[in-house]
């Protein structure tokens, strides 16, 4: 019997939004908590279909393939100009980003 999904609180949504660096206002937090709850319940319903289906491993890939490898052979790279073309800012052939806080 699959466990019923845990309740999603407004704090859970705020926590997840923080981890994902998504800024949400109060109204959005209020709206998203029950929506996420609904999604979890729907997934739980799908899981119920597995009941009695025997030992079915969860999938993370749409096709049952394994060992897709490439040879260890060099292929052409981008030029630095191409690599940096989409960068908002660069300096000395490197990507320039705002100062990084929090970790040394």
């Amino acid at each position, binding site marked *: 019997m699959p466990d019923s999904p845990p309740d999603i609180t407004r704090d859970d949504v705020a926590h997840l939004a923080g981890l994902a660096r998504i800024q949400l206002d109060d109204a959005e937090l209020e709206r998203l908590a029950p929506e996420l709850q609904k999604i979890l319940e729907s997934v739980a319903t799908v899981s119920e279909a597995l009941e009695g289906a025997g030992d079915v491993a969860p999938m993370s890939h749409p096709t049952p393939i*394994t060992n897709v490898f490439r040879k260890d052979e060099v292929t052409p790279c981008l030029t630095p100009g191409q690599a940096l073309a989409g960068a908002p800012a660069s300096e000395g052939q*490197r990507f320039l980003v705002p100062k990084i806080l929090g970790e040394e």
Partner: protein
Amino acid sequence: MTMTAPALVDFDEALTRYEPVMGLEVHVELNTATKMFCGCPAVFGGEPNTNVCPVCLGLPGALPVVNEKAVESAIRIGLALNCEIAEWCRFARKNYFYPDMPKNFQTSQYDEPIAFDGWMDVELDGETYRVEIERAHMEEDTGKSSHMGGATGRIHGADYSLLDYNRAGIPLIEIVTRPIFVPGDKAPAVARAYVQQLRDLILALDVSDARMDQGSLRADVNLSLRPVGVSTLGTRTETKNVNSFRSVERAVRYEISRHAAILDDGGLILQETRHFHEDTGTTSSGREKSDADDYRYFPEPDLAPVAPSREWVESLRATLPEPPGERRRRLQGEWGFSDLEMRDTVGAGALDLVAATIASGAPAAAARKWWLSELARRANEQGVDLAALPITPADVAAIQKLVEAGSINDKLARQVFDGVLAGEGTPDEVVQKRGLAVVSDEGALSSAVDRAIEANPDVADKIRAGKVAAAGALIGAVMKEMRGQADAGRVRELIISKLT
């Protein structure tokens, strides 16, 4: 940043009250030609952002594909560490927001490492300590950030950062031990010996150049203390930036002393990342483990699972080099070293250096003598590992050849070491540039001996009377006059022949 030096308890005293428990995480950068998930060259250095492509830059729509050679190397490392090899495992996304990974996640492995449940026997001072390996998993290296502006080039005070992604995506294997319980006084040396012997193993497998000074082998040291007699583990700290074998040992010692002081004071250890400082041998607070460690791992949907067939695994097992312990015993026999000599050689991290010197033609005893006396002393003075000295085993063998040929003596050999270490060229070039060859001009030697006899008539008389041991004083005088550039054995012969 202001920092007050933390209180420390003397190492030996700390061990009377606490038992250290260690955990070591070692990252090995593989020596594959290309990156983990794309065909960009996996090379150290180079002009910034020259070895990048849409995959390792995380551009939309790019599709990673696993490097088969990297999987092969991972399996070989796992097997060499006596691990089980997963029959089926996946990559996972480790999500975090930091610009060293342009994708905003690092492709790693989470609960399905390719290798797990292994061990390595670490030999130290004649004892064997079994270190259990929890797992070895595949992941990719990050880009290199440079913090610009500010006073110190560090993040604090920086105005902005610059990113070079040449290193992003280079294959890494992370090897994680289970908690290591060894007698406290041995803990720092066992940690060092583990990393040293793990490096030897990696080199023997030829899967990485494993240079700690260049970051292709990196160690993180986890340490906690628990009061003697208590079985639950204390809170641990994780020390990063440990860039040499010697530093591994120092980091363990320092953290033991620091934890003990906090615990003695009734304080609590903060679970945090700490940074090791090579110059002072101390650690400083990095960041506290917190929400930021909620990496929201999930299976990587862009990569198919890795399911190495048992045939493949067994064929790779057949390629493993001789296990290090067996190799040490074999070499000891071949070289005729005593247990103590072998222990010192291994302990100094000189095993491979001595082996390579012998392979370059030097006698075993001479190879050991140069590395463990002359060069170990210099490495110690400079606070670097023996292998980091700018001299090769071939150089050492060449110097030994010059000694055997009588071109230089031991004393001059030391000057040749000086020259090679100072970057003056090969041993032959140093001998030439410094004019170090011993004087083989018999006439010059003979007259120097005559002068020494004349200047020391009483010593000469003693020798004439049969006290050959007194010749030392005359040899010294001749060597002084020749400024060391004479063959002491030949000088002795000349003195004896003139006086008896």
